[in-house]
């Protein structure tokens, strides 16, 4: 009940300035009210970026008895890393990997696609979660917001493609809807990728391997995820352990990870230096 009221209040708050200012000052008031509404909407999006991402990726909070092993692993790794334990959210969507989002270091969530429990073994799951937990730092809020903007931009291409399907241009995999989607992807991919690359972290692999304490499992988890990777969600690549498969060449702009060979070489050198 409280949540519904909160949403209703937010939905009412946004057009109110337009109506109020327009009533008092006429057309100029409407324009000023519109500007105030936009600023208000942007502020709401920035402060609720993590909630919006949960909604976009259809993630639901894991029940206390659900995914017990995962919850225990997250607890152990968080204590080792000395960060607050992130909440676990699961999704049935076929995402390229799990990722961590949050407003700040004390308020983080791990989004975990259920398909990964069938692909990765115990130690490999440890390595995957370690990769997520090392990303919990002061820049998590910025990265969450960047992920939201990049997701919205790239999803517009998918939305246009579905729009073409529903307006009679053919099936989803036919050339005409694909062309519409490709055109929009061509427009949004460079700015979305530029936003995403501005917030990428460095040396995550080495820190994650050190946290889970098992370099071999980390490399195996990369191999398994690359073998079982999915197409779609290009904007999630920088958060996940591996990049998703590319459907169009525009998605190469979102490449956040080096090739497997370079990654393994850098990991081994990084661990030696440690």
């Amino acid at each position, binding site marked *: 009940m409280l949540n519904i009221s909160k949403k209703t209040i937010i939905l009412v708050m946004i057009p109110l300035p337009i109506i109020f200012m327009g009533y008092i000052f006429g057309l100029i008031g409407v324009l000023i009210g519109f500007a105030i509404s936009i600023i208000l909407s942007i502020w709401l999006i920035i402060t609720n970026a993590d909630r919006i991402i949960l909604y976009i990726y259809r993630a639901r909070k894991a029940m206390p008895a659900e995914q017990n092993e995962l919850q225990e692993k997250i607890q152990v790794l968080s204590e080792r890393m000395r960060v607050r334990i992130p909440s676990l959210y699961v999704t049935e969507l076929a995402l390229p990997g799990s990722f961590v989002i949050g407003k700040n270091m004390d308020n983080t969530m791990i989004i975990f696609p259920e398909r990964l429990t069938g692909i990765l073994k115990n130690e490999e799951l440890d390595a995957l979660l370690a990769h997520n937990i090392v990303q919990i730092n002061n820049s998590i809020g910025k990265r969450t917001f960047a992920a939201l903007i990049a997701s919205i931009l790239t999803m517009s291409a998918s939305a246009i493609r579905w729009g073409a399907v529903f307006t009679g241009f053919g099936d989803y995999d036919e050339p005409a809807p694909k062309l519409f989607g490709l055109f929009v992807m061509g*427009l949004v*991919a460079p700015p979305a990728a530029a936003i995403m*690359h501005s917030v990428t972290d460095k040396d995550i692999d080495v820190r994650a391997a050190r946290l889970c304490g098992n370099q071999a499992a980390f490399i195996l988890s990369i191999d398994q995820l690359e073998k079982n990777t999915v197409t779609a969600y290009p904007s999630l690549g920088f958060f996940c352990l591996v990049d998703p498969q590319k459907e169009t*060449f*525009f998605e*190469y*702009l979102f490449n956040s990870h*080096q090739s497997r060979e*370079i990654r393994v070489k850098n990991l081994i050198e990084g661990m030696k230096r440690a």
Partner: protein
Amino acid sequence: MIELNLDLKFKMKPWKKALAFSFLFYLIILFILIVIITFTKRGFSFKLVSIISAVYLGILTLGFRYMYRRFQEIFTVMNQ
């Protein structure tokens, strides 16, 4: 019958190809914008279209220049 065998190989790194096509798509948007302006003004206004094209292409070129340099830095480090 005359046969033309053009063995053209156009090799470009994927990210450069992506930026090139993206630039082309933004030029198509400019073309659509010019068509809309021409229809609304019921005639081709060279002055207005030149100003809009100059501003649009200026912003586009600066934006793509920044993105090209940024992606070049990123992908050079990534491939090392």
